[in-house]
Structures are given as structure tokens and as C-alpha cells.
């Protein structure tokens, strides 16, 4: 336990905020995708740097990782990683409403990642009276060997990461991915302050 770890109250509060954000985000997505989207309550865990490396490196068939930086007021910032498994990516073009020959698989993955990340984080930011800007999403090259390298070469040092498991079930196809929010130390302190403020108001 160090100063970056969330208390039980803070963790509950964050979980609630994320649940609400994910609910609203999926509602927006369902409208955009024009199809019924069944969303399981996302499982959220905060993991430390060492554990994350272990979980991610154990995952087999990792097809792609898309990274996208986000920046808000009050020093809330970080990087979202969307991790896809080989079997989960067959029909993303369908899901997005594109014709398969209109865009490459890389672009499909980048597109859906950007939509998931920004829709979710926009709603989340609104919950905490904030507003986000985003970097262009990018596909990490050769994830099979380079993921741990990428995690070590982040532009900031981070101790805590939030792992959000997103699972969408759409009538005709299933879609799964893991969203990992890497948050730098200073931003964790800022998030804890925001959570404390919300808890105090509650």
C-alpha cells in the first residue's frame, strides 16, 4: 500500500463513475451503431505496473494494441491501451457500418478503439466536471514482442493502471476487448482528490 493506491471508498466511487460512464457511452454507441448493444457491467481492477506486465504478457493471440493519449484539466491525463485478441476482430467493419473493402483491418481497429476510448472518457470526464483532449490513436508495431518494451518507454512513469474489461454483445456478432488506462503518478493524486471531493459531496 502506498500513496498511489486507492482506499476502498475511492475504489467504489471510481467503479461507480466508470459504470455510469460506460452505461452512457454504450447507449450512445448503440444509437450510432443503430443496433441493439448488450453490455455486460465492465469489470474494473486497478493493477500495479508489475502485475499488468504479467497479465498482458500471459495473454495469447494478442492481435493488436492501439494506444491513445488523453489530457484533461487538473492534471488528469494518461494513455489508453486497447488490447484485441485474434478471435475478437473478425467483423469490426460490419459493427462500424463500413464495407469491408473501404478500410484495412488496421484502420478498423484504430477506428473502433478511438470511438470506444473517446466516447467513454468524454462521459467519464463530464462526471467529474472535466473535459478531455486526445492524441491521434496509433497502432503499436509488433505487439507480440514489443508490448513490454512500449510499457517501459512511456513518456511518464506510472505505478497504477486501471484495467477495464469491455464486452459488447451485438445480436449478430460478438466483440471483446480490454481497455487499459495507464495513469501517471501525478494524475493519480489528482484523481484521488477529485474522488475525495465527490465522496465529500455525497
Amino acid at each position, binding site marked *: 500500500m502506498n500513496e498511489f493506491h486507492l482506499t476502498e471508498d475511492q475504489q467504489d466511487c471510481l467503479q461507480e463513475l466508470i459504470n455510469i460512464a460506460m452505461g452512457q457511452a454504450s447507449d*450512445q*454507441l448503440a*444509437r*450510432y451503431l443503430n443496433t441493439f448493444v448488450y453490455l455486460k457491467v465492465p469489470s474494473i481492477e486497478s493493477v500495479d505496473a508489475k502485475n499488468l506486465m504479467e497479465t498482458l504478457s500471459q495473454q495469447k493471440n494478442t492481435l493488436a494494441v492501439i494506444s491513445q493519449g488523453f489530457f484533461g484539466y487538473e492534471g488528469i491525463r494518461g494513455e489508453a491501451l486497447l488490447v484485441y485478441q485474434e478471435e475478437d476482430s473478425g467483423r469490426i467493419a460490419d459493427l*462500424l*457500418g*463500413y*464495407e469491408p473493402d*473501404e*478500410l*484495412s483491418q*488496421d*484502420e478498423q481497429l*484504430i*477506428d473502433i478503439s*478511438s*470511438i470506444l476510448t*473517446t*466516447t467513454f472518457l*468524454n462521459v467519464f470526464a463530464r462526471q467529474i466536471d472535466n473535459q478531455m*483532449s*486526445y*492524441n*491521434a*490513436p*496509433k*497502432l503499436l508495431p509488433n505487439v507480440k514482442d514489443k508490448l513490454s518494451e512500449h510499457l517501459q518507454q512511456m513518456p511518464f512513469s506510472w505505478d497504477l493502471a486501471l484495467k477495464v474489461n469491455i464486452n459488447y454483445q451485438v445480436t449478430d456478432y460478438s466483440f471483446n476487448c480490454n481497455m487499459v488506462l495507464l495513469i501517471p503518478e501525478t494524475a493519480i493524486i489528482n484523481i484521488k482528490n477529485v474522488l475525495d471531493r465527490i465522496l465529500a459531496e455525497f
Partner: protein
Amino acid sequence: MLDINALISPENKTPSALSEQNLTQINNQIANQLNTGILVLDAEYNIVMWNRFLQVHTDKVANNIIGQSIFIAFPEVPERWLSRKLDSVLQLNTPSFCSWQQRHHLFELPHTRPITTDSEFMAQNCTFLPIETDGIVKNICILIEDVTDVCHYQTQLQKTLDELATISRIDGLTQIYNRRHWQGSLEQEYAKAQRHDKRLSLIMLDLDYFKLLNDNYGHQCGDMVLIEVSALISSLLRVEDIFGRYGGEEFAIILPETELSGAMELAQRICSSIATKPLTYKDHKIKVTVSLGVAQLSAEESNYEMLITQSDSALYQAKAQGRNQVCCADFSTSKPID
């Protein structure tokens, strides 16, 4: 990231605050002097604003383009795909992106770089931003960044890396695989054969009396012979066979999914092809022969190096029996060589 809204937000007002009019003038000038294209659309995707960057990079006249649909003004953009993308910006109120790595460019704009690139058009990173007015997203701002330099250098870098990867695998003289790559391939093929219980054979071969050839005709003659022999052997192989230069005048061939009899047959063909191939160097007729040793993977080997040892000892035997011939490792009686 460029955020025009932040520039004009009231929080940025200092005590010596500028008038609305001055602020507008400043913002207009910044927008027009940016080295980034700005294109603003309404909810029907008609163009409502664009900046100088785009005006000077297209031949279009400002008066004609305002009010026009983006798909009419820029017929080169893929309409169905872009509509869907713009829909997401309006509906989800989220930014969207398009990188040169996935699409080299959206708009056919000439680039201003005096460098040779693969495309006559400017490589672009495009950002699509939702713009809220009175709390409702009614407009989309498209930012178009010129990344022709990045694209050019990235392409050059990739080309160089590919070249380096090739050089690190290929023997400079004979243009076949070098020892390091060949041995790595053998390790892989060995593991594959073991795992799937497949056959695997190996041929090691050595030019006969190569030192004499060098001594009599010089090293340039020796080099010529190495090149010719490599080319001749390459022409006799299947695509899946892995042919490498093992050392000086010694070569090795990995034959996946091949049993001993097949490998022997190939070794014989190589032996006779080389012996009957006339080579000339500076009007001298050069007679070249090779000795070959063949081995097949059996249950006895516990690592790939043992397979090399087996075929090497068969090669040694072919040399001892008078050269210009093929010998096969008798693996039932084989013993590790001291």
C-alpha cells in the same frame, strides 16, 4: 493539439482584455497563418469556412467553395467512408482521426517538399473535431497536417531496415544464406520436425581440392567457382529447401519433409551436375567436383548440432573414399565424433 476554442475562451482574458473584435482579428490571422489546413463543415457536410493554407494548396476559388458539399468540392475523398466517419463525430461528440499510415492522404493537395516521394500528393494526418455552438454540435472542424517529411523519412527508414535484414541473412559473395541465418533455420526446422514428427534431411558438401584451385589460378578464380557452384545447386533445389554457405568452401542444405533416399538422390544429382558442368576462367578449363555427406533425422539425435555432426562425418567419409561422391551417415552405428 490545436485548440482554437481555447484561444478565444473567456478565461484567457487578462485585465487588459482585448475587445471581441480584436480577438476575432487575432484568431483569424492565426488560422490563416497556420501551416495546417482548416476546413469547417456544417451538419450537412457543406463547407462553411476554410483557411489560407487550403486556399493556397488548391486551385479552388474561395467564393465558389463556401456552401459547397465537401464531396463536390473535393471529389477525391471516399464519400461513403468519410460520411460514416463524420457521422460518428456529430453523433458521439468525439474527435476522430485519420493517419497517413492507414491512408496516405484524403485531399489531393500538392506537397511543397523538394524531395522525391512515392506520391505526388501531400501525406496527411487529419483530425475531425466536433465544434459546439450554443451547446449543440453543429459543425465539424477538419484539421489537415502536412506530414510528407515524416512519411518520406519513415519510408526510407523501413527500406533501409529491410535491406539490413536481407544483408544480415545473405552471404555477400554467393548470395545464398550465410552461416548464421542457415544455422538458425536448421534450429527451427529441427524443432518443427521433432514437434510434428516429420522427416528432415541434411546435406553437407565441400569443394574438392579447393586450396589447389586457389593456389594455381588465384583467389578470383576461387570466388568465381564458389559463385557458379552456388548458382548451379540453387537451380536444383525446391523452394522449401534451405541452402547456405557453411564456411569457406563448405555448403549445407536443409531438406524439410524429406527422407534419406530423396536426399541421397538429390545429392547424387548435385554431384554429377557439378562434375559435368564446364567452367572456364581466363581461357583455362576448370574441373570442379564436390564431395557430399547426407544424414536424416532419427530418434537418436537430441539436438540439431548432432545432425550436422552426422552429415559432416559422412562428408569426411566421401572425401576419404576418393572425393567426387556421396556418402550417407549410417545412423544405426553412428557415434559422436571426438
